[in-house]
């Protein structure tokens, strides 16, 4: 036995050592991540780079946009990001705040290829945060006016609107109610009246008037300045005068609208040129693009993606070389040929390649005057406010001054948390911990003073490893979890501990108001409330049957029923997901034999949770059954014999002998099944991801998403403690019940 253990340990250690030895490659390796269409094409540029630098191997990885944000966050937190990554302009602030990006100023100083003037100003600025540069523009995107030349000619305009007043005039003239039914049949222009696109369209007017959403230091809202109010009123007025419709743009097919003149003008990006050519062939030659109209300036929005180097990269020099490579004008043109992404380098636009593309060149002209939203992580929240509030004016007809005040208020509240001073929380943490540790030690040591006389150190040495592990990974985390739940620990504080703040019970209060949390609570209660009695009933039933004396092959049946218990829940979930498949699954086939129509088990909000319950009961009834069996065997058969002599039938002896005799077993089974079911996680994680519409999200799943998808660890710890509290209360209740019934 001893021999085998030693061999086993040696074997394990050997493997561990081998696994950590990396194969030495003579080439230097650069890892590049890119998303979407760019992800698919960047391999080509990588090959060109490898040709120039034969001692380098570039490993590119394409990531779908949907998973990109999460994957990047996990990479930053988990410590294995790529060397270079494509980052959207609106994500720069976030990842900078996570301390994930490398500062590039020193590289720029000595570079011959890259300097601020070589790029468009608006685009360069998306990389400037707190006065330093954190990325280099890769490709850009801006918005211009798409308009129907012929329709404008009809109302007497040989050129597109060049000023705000021309926009109004043209818009009024284009807007027509042809059949006189009071409904407008042809609008002037399509603009966002509510929802996520509002801030972009509104932004044009704001910037053109020399205003901005926030103060230059990004600390306060500036929505009540003269310039902003003028732009804001102009914008909502366009809807009031019915020049632009208040309908949801998703309900209208843009191409059809443009062809038919329903929307004679709209604002969009470079990808639209090819699309309009393709989808609206009947108006070929009748439409054009132009830079936006002017008030003080004719600013448009600039977006696109930048290339960033991750701070943790070990190949920063090489990564910078790659970025320089991608920034050369000829390579920028090459990239346009591959993807039609607009070059961010100004010299690239002078290339002969664009000579026969006048529409694309319009975008180049617009790029000379662009602005971008404030470079702060909270921008997304602020953008949402505009989406909601503007709707109240355009749809709800409310007064714009009043709404502007509300917007200002909300923005300032969001920004306030940025301005909160550090609370020296680290120090408090340390003090708290040390106090607890000291109390712990005192508590142990001063147990029985008298025994200190003949103390041998051996037992302490023996329990040391176990106690150490349990302390570090169990006791302290339990306390730490509670403390975490009192802080604002999120992705930004994980990467910079100095930013952590005590927020008291704020997380718990937010939890109280959190709809999804209550849903997860409800789902968990249903799962437990239905699943536990069902599981126990089935197990008891099967155990009673199996316990009968006449049963043959008892251990065979027992083993068979036990198989689901020992298989991992993940495999069970994957298998049952296939069983529940609405078209080809075994279950729908089976119920079809009885004439029942096929059900969409996992995608129906009503059936999803019951489906999970059935699977859970199937998985663990064997375990409880085995325990019941053991408990049944402990009941002396003499009791049954006596009852039979007294004339009791099966049912009566079951009620009066079996059930009472099983009481301690039933108690144990109930409590453990209860606690187990309360923690259900893998089933919804694998099968439904909490859906559909949060109908299967459990408390632990919600906690996992908050903690490890969004990295809101403070919030997730609060959920953990609420869960623990509930389990604790229920367990104590059951203990009470048990004691009372005795």
């Amino acid at each position, binding site marked *: 036995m001893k021999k085998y253990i030693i061999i086993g340990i040696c074997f394990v250690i050997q493997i561990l050592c081998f696994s950590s030895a990396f194969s030495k490659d003579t080439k230097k390796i650069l890892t590049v991540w890119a998303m979407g269409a760019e992800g698919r094409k960047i391999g080509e540029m990588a090959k060109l780079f490898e040709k120039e630098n034969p001692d380098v191997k570039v490993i590119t990885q394409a990531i779908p946009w949907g998973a990109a944000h999460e994957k990047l966050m996990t990479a930053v*937190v*988990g410590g294995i990001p790529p060397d270079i990554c494509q980052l959207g302009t609106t994500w720069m602030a976030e990842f900078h705040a996570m301390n994930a990006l490398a500062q590039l100023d020193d590289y720029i100083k000595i570079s011959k290829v890259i300097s601020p003037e070589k790029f468009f100003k608006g685009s360069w600025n998306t990389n400037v945060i707190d006065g330093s540069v954190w990325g280099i523009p890769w490709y850009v995107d801006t918005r211009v006016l798409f308009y129907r030349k012929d329709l404008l000619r009809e109302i007497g305009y040989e050129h597109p609107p060049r000023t705000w007043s021309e926009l109004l005039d043209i818009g009024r003239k284009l807007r027509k109610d042809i059949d006189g039914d009071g409904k407008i049949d042809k609008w002037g222009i399509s603009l966002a009246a509510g929802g996520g696109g509002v801030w972009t369209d509104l932004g044009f007017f704001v910037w053109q008037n020399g205003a901005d959403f926030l103060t230059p230091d990004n600390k306060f809202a500036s929505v009540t300045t003269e310039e902003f109010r003028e732009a804001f009123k102009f914008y909502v007025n366009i809807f009031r005068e019915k020049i632009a419709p208040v309908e949801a743009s998703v309900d209208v097919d843009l191409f059809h609208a443009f062809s038919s003149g329903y929307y004679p003008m709209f604002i969009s990006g470079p990808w639209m040129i090819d699309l309009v050519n393709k989808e609206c062939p009947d108006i070929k030659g009748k439409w054009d693009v132009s830079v936006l109209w002017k008030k003080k300036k004719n600013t448009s929005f600039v977006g696109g993606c930048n290339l960033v180097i991750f701070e943790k990269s070990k190949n920063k020099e090489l990564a910078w070389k790659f970025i320089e490579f991608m920034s050369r004008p000829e390579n920028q043109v090459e990239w346009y040929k591959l993807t039609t992404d607009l070059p961010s380098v100004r010299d690239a636009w002078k290339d002969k390649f664009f000579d026969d593309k006048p529409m694309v060149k319009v975008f180049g002209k617009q790029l000379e005057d662009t602005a971008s939203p404030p470079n702060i992580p909270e921008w997304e929240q602020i953008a949402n406010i505009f989406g909601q509030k503007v709707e109240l004016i355009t749809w709800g007809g409310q007064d714009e001054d009043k709404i502007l005040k509300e917007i200002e208020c909300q923005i300032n509240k969001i920004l306030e948390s940025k301005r909160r001073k550090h609370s020296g929380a680290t120090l408090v943490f340390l003090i708290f911990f040390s106090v607890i540790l000291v109390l712990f030690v005192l508590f142990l040591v001063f147990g029985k003073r008298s025994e200190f006389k003949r103390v041998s150190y051996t037992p302490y040495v*023996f329990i040391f490893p176990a106690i150490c592990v349990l302390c570090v990974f169990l006791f302290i985390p339990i306390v730490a979890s509670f403390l975490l739940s009192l802080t604002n620990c999120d992705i930004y504080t994980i990467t910079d501990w100095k930013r952590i703040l005590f927020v008291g019970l704020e997380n718990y209060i937010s939890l109280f108001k959190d709809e999804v949390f209550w849903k997860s609570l409800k789902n968990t209660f249903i799962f437990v409330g239905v699943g536990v009695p069902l599981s126990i009933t089935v197990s008891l039933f099967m155990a009673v049957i199996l316990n009968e004396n*006449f049963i043959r092959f008892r251990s065979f049946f027992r083993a068979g029923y036990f198989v689901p218990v020992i298989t991992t829940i993940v495999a069970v979930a994957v298998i049952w997901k296939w*069983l529940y498949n609405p078209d*080809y699954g075994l279950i729908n086939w089976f119920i079809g034999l009885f004439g029942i129509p096929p059900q969409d088990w996992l995608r129906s909000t009503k059936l999803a949770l019951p489906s999970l319950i059935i699977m859970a009961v*199937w998985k663990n009834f064997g375990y409880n059954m085995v*325990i019941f069996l053991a408990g049944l065997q402990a009941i002396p058969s003499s009791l049954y014999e006596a009852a039979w002599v007294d004339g009791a039938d099966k049912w009566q002896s079951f009620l009066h002998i079996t059930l009472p005799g099983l009481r301690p077993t039933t108690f144990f089974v109930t409590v453990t099944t209860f606690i187990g079911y309360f923690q259900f996680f893998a089933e919804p994680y694998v099968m439904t991801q909490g859906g559909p519409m949060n109908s299967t999200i459990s408390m632990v799943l919600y906690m996992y998403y908050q903690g490890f998808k969004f990295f809101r660890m403070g919030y997730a710890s609060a959920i953990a403690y609420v869960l623990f509290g509930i*389990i604790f209360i229920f367990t104590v209740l059951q203990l009470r019940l048990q004691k009372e019934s005795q």
Partner: protein
Amino acid sequence: MHKTEQKFNRLLVHLFLIGGLIITLAPFLWMISTSFKSTEAIFTRTPNLIPEKPTLENYQRLFGIEPPEIREKKGTIGLSFGVHSKNSIIVAISITVVSLFINSLAAFAFAKYNFPGKEKIFALLLATLMIPSQMTMMPVFLLLRSLGLLNSYLGLIIPASASAFGIFLIRQFMLTIPNDLIESARIDGCSDFRIYWNIVLPLCKPVLASLGVFTFMGAWNDFLWPLIIMTKESMYTLPVALANLSGEYVTEYGLLMAGSLVVVAPIIIIFLFAQKFVIESFAHTGLKG
């Protein structure tokens, strides 16, 4: 009449039990069956248990050894399950060996020694049994991250290397070992560690085997902790890899069923060889609560 009626009833009961067994095991049979089918055979409305044209392509794709035509058609799945199997094996064996050692050492101290604070520490130990493991998820993750132990075997092994449950179980067993055995060894000049290693531990084989099986299965099947601690795909254990596969290849049921079989097979094999022992271990460990 009575006898035949009784015989008939008993037959019915056995049939019922067999029916129950079929329902219990059907998903597994279906899993095995699907794993040997090609895509066309899987997506038919009339299921059949034995595939007409059984194919190994799902398993080949799983381990990255598929023939070129299939690779052309369906692409590779990224990391081979061979990597994940290796991870699972290393982790499960290490956790079992290390935790048996550390737990039994502590159990020995609790069972055979008297020292100040013993009662209190032990009571605290038992109290931790009530804590759901998800409560420590966040702090342990942050701790391992700052120690640089994320994405490492040690990150999974160390937190699992001691368990109050294991200590309790072994201690109960050790209490039944007569003290005179230990006393006589001490008189003969045996050091405490040798008493533990050469005398007590061999006597504990039954409980160690039970706990070992229980721990191994638990570590092999564990999902939440490897999911959290391993962010690099090459370090995933089998359950996490399977969950990942199921998220990426949602409709490739043949592949997923093959993956499920690989994850489940070792446990089932152990079970087949020692089912009585395994079941008794579970029941035994359960009842002692």
